[in-house]
């Protein structure tokens, strides 16, 4: 534990040898494509597929009537039609109305153009605030409110009555795209036994299996999902993409079918990060003690539920920051609109609310004439604090240490100057620099009362190797290396003797969704405990043979030592087999029970904490912002693979930088403007700052070796750290993301010469 391990898939990915779903081929493979509605809200009046069917090379054209089972899919609520039927409603531009399978992709594309679809347009709901108006058109018959989420603690009126200073602000964050490198691809085929196999890079293979089975009217055992390598997920590969379509076409044609999205389709169809409007009201004593916090959030969940309710719940429970506040009231309205659906995206709603509350805290510090770090330190959660959902924190709260260490490093790098005062770059009077700081917390695991469990199987072989099996997904975060290290540690094997097999619903037990920064903790524990069971079984066998108590067997470097003998593990395994004992074990690990929101108990079994400080340089004439350095401290409980941790921090900071400065998924009246990557601006390598990681380890009792999640927290405070720095450099407060250069230049100019703007 704690030493650097290169990820096992690294070389194959860099050399191009790695196989992603699109790299698989099968004899007789057909190419499937979906016709997308292209209109945001309408009734499908007429659909004529005759010409497409007649096109040579077309093998099947399917419409909603051809779906044998349930029409709808969805991770929580089944409200998302696999195909919209005639007389039914289109709710966003990416809704599918027909499927084509053809001998070649070009033919499939041509066939789509021959399908005649007529729509009767309906008025469009294009933002969540509008969606809640009483006269707003309805996206779903049940109403536009997906969920009203409430957090209550203390007495909010009383809290504000005690406050000596009150801040009240509104912030906006845009829809965002994951832009994983590998667009979605699924290949489905029938097996000789009449089952359906689907090859796909998915974050939740078992959920795929069940959703496919429901639409195809098959029992789940008849469907096998085989996970391929995943070229990035970030939450964007939790929902169904082409899995059901490929399976329907394979079932209809009897041939293997590949459904590959091009970038345009990927941008249009898969769920995004929720756009939000967040109002933050903070009440504070003159000395900086927070007494009341009230937030109101609107989340744009788009056309279908996806994980919208869960995401916005996380946004809401984290919306008053990692602070001790006696009186809290938070209300969130997760709304349906006719925009592309929103769902999981690294940070899971907390990215948005962290930007809002951390901007507000900086504004409050200024209002109080207080150092912004001091204000945070004063109110920071610590062991013994009670969160806004009523959870008493009893361990593993490293926030103060994160704050202290980032502050020390920032002050050291500022060479004694006030880091929050603008510094003119010598020789360049139009360029100023300053630092900004933000803190964050993020739950590890599903929480809120959801059963959170993972199963893993560990098997030993007579050649002295071990295999770990679980359905969890490697989406780039480095899970394979982590599970390999844990099994090697428990079995006292060299790393290279441990293989990891992931994501196959026939061969690997259910590791649960790869989401909520949970895999290292939950599946890591399952692997740790399964390994332990296997090790004990080996020990028992040897103990009997050498007539010692099982505790007398020691495991060292692939050897079992007993009574002065050194038995290679492979030999011990052979002995077990000879005795008819299975050298393998499956462990179903249940994470500590959590309580639903509103019950006041432990809503989550662990939280990660972070502090980041960013130094920016702003060109006052052009509005350009360059991030020069980011100091990032993360309390991850315990580091398992430092190299994986570094990757998560660097990637997280860059994603947060894009969120702050360049990225915005633009949808106007339900129509996607950023339907190509050329229009969706991700930060390029030249914008990469120097990233200074600081590791903070406050172990959590139940985590494997004390570890908790890092995947999301590393990205969450980056954005407000940057926008707070922009404020310190220029005096312009960012309340809407991203920081548009055009807007910033105008705001700066307005201050200097109002007559020019």
């Amino acid at each position, binding site marked *: 534990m704690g030493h650097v391990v290169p990820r096992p898939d690294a070389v194959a990915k860099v050399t191009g040898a790695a196989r992603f779903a699109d790299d698989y081929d099968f004899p007789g493979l057909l190419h499937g494509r979906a016709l997308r509605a292209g209109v945001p809200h309408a009734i499908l009046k007429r659909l004529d597929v005759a010409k497409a069917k007649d096109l040579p090379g077309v093998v099947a054209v399917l419409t909603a009537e051809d779906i044998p089972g349930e029409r709808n899919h969805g991770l929580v609520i089944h409200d998302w039609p696999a195909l919209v039927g005639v007389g039914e409603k289109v709710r966003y531009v990416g809704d599918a109305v027909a499927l084509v399978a053809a001998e070649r992709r070009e033919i499939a594309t041509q066939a789509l153009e021959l399908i005649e679809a007529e729509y009767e347009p309906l008025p469009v709901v294009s933002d969540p605030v509008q969606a809640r108006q009483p006269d707003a058109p309805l996206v779903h018959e049940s109403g536009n409110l997906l969920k009203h989420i409430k957090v209550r603690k203390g007495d909010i009126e009383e809290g504000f009555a005690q406050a000596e200073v009150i801040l009240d602000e509104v912030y906006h964050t845009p829809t965002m795209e994951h832009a994983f490198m590998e667009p979605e691809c699924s290949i489905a085929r029938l097996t000789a036994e009449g089952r359906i196999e689907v090859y796909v890079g998915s974050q939740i293979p078992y959920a795929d299996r069940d959703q496919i089975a429901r639409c195809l009217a098959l029992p789940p055992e008849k469907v096998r999902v085989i996970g391929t390598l995943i070229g990035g997920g970030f939450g964007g590969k939790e929902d169904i993409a082409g899995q059901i379509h490929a399976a329907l076409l394979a079932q209809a044609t009897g041939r293997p079918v590949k459904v590959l999205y091009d970038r345009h389709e990927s941008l249009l169809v898969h769920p995004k990060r929720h756009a939000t409007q967040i109002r933050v009201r903070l009440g504070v004593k003159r000395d900086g003690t927070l007494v009341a916090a009230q937030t109101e959030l609107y989340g744009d969940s788009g056309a279908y539920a996806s994980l919208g309710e869960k995401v916005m719940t996380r946004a809401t429970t984290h919306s008053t920051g990692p602070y001790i506040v006696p009186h809290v009231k938070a209300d969130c309205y997760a709304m349906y609109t006719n925009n592309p659906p929103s769902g999981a995206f690294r940070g899971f709603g907390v990215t948005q609310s962290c930007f809002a509350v951390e901007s507000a805290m900086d504004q409050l510090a200024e209002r109080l004439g207080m150092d912004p770090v001091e204000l945070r330190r004063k109110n920071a959660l610590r062991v013994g604090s009670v969160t806004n959902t009523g959870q008493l924190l009893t361990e593993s709260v490293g926030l103060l240490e994160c704050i202290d260490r980032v502050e020390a490093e920032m002050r050291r790098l500022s060479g004694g100057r006030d880091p929050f005062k603008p510094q003119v770059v010598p020789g360049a009077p139009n360029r100023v620099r300053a630092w900004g700081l933000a803190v964050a917390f993020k739950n590890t695991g599903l929480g809120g009362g959801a059963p959170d469990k993972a199963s893993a199987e560990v098997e030993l072989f007579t050649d002295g190797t071990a295999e770990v099996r679980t359905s969890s997904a490697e989406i780039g975060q480095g899970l394979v290396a982590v599970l390999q290290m844990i099994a090697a540690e428990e079995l006292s094997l060299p790393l290279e003797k441990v293989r990891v097999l992931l994501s196959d619903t026939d061969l690997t037990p259910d590791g649960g969704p790869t989401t909520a920064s949970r895999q290292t903790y939950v599946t890591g524990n399952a692997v740790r405990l399964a390994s332990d069971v296997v090790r004990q079984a080996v020990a028992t066998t040897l103990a009997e043979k050498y007539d010692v108590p099982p505790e007398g067997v020691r495991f060292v470097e692939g050897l079992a030592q007993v009574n002065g003998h050194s038995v290679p593990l492979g030999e011990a395994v052979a002995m077990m087999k000879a005795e008819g004992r299975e050298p393998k074990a499956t462990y179903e690990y249940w994470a500590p029970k959590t309580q639903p929101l509103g019950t006041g108990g432990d809503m989550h079994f662990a939280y990660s904490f972070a502090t980041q400080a960013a130094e920016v340089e702003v060109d006052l004439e052009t509005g350009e912002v360059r991030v020069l350095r980011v100091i990032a401290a993360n309390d991850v409980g315990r580091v398992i693979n430092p190299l994986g941790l570094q990757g998560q921090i660097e990637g997280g900071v860059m994603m947060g930088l894009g969120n702050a400065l360049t990225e915005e998924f*633009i949808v106007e009246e339900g129509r996607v403007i950023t339907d190509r990557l050329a229009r969706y601006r991700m930060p390029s*390598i030249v914008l990469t700052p120097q990233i200074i990681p600081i590791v903070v380890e406050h172990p959590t009792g139940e985590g494997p070796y004390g570890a908790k999640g890092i995947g999301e927290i590393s990205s969450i405070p980056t954005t407000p750290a940057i926008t707070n720095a922009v404020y310190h450099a220029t005096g312009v407060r960012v309340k809407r993301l991203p920081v548009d250069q055009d807007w910033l*230049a105008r705001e700066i100019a307005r201050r200097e010469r109002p007559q020019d703007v």
Partner: protein
Amino acid sequence: MQPFEYHSPRSLPEALRLLQELGDGARLIAGGTDLLLRMKQGQLAPRALIDLRRAAELHGISFSPEEGLRIGAAVTLRELQRSPLVRDHCPCLCETASWMASEQVRSLATVGGNLCNASPAADLAPPLMVLDAQAVLVGPQGERRLPVEAFFLGPGQTALDRGELLKEVLVPPTPGNALYLKHAPRAFMDIAVVGVAVHLRMERGLARAVRIALGAVGPTPLRAGPSEALLEGSAPTASLLEEAADLAARACSPIDDLRGSAWYRRRMVRVLTRRALDRLCAASLVGEGT
């Protein structure tokens, strides 16, 4: 994308003949980095493509003291960026190319394609304009030359007649210095929101051959005539340069779009013009002393 015929002529005369024969349904293609995108997006559906890359006459970069640099239309941006001849005689063009697209795109994209695509934001246009470059057009009637700035007629529209193509660009030898400043939100792999090119030389403390060209702020790349006139023959002072930059901002007619507002573009013209002038005057003054 609609099916199309593909022709790959081995010489310039063959290319011209094909262009004549195939008529309006045919399109020339070089690197395809502009054209193929538009075809894939269904904005264009030519019946035939005539690929210019195998015509040797359109390749190569050469220099003569009389004519200056000759850059073939099929020269790629990567070749331009790395050419020692260009680096020696027009370093500004190497620098410009280095800020265009990405290494991968630059090894396909051509100089001719950048000009003939006639985007108001084409990065090569402003520097070539201030370098007084000529476009050499060739067609059934033979060759003709036009100043590069007369080559652009509107967005996507050039002075090429039916049956004509761009053969090469000629950049006369210049004793002055040129600079192109590009502003793009992502700094890299991004189309210019504003591009400003400036050329001048300092003679006994006076600015000569002052030429200023602006990209992405009008239907075509354009010259900032009033600014040039103000500075020509003057002894540049800070306030004069500021005034010239102001005039440049007033000379353009930008629009609001996804990439930037008209207000911002105008402001960026002023800022970049001022910065380019500052740098060139400083560079030239140093040069004068030696």
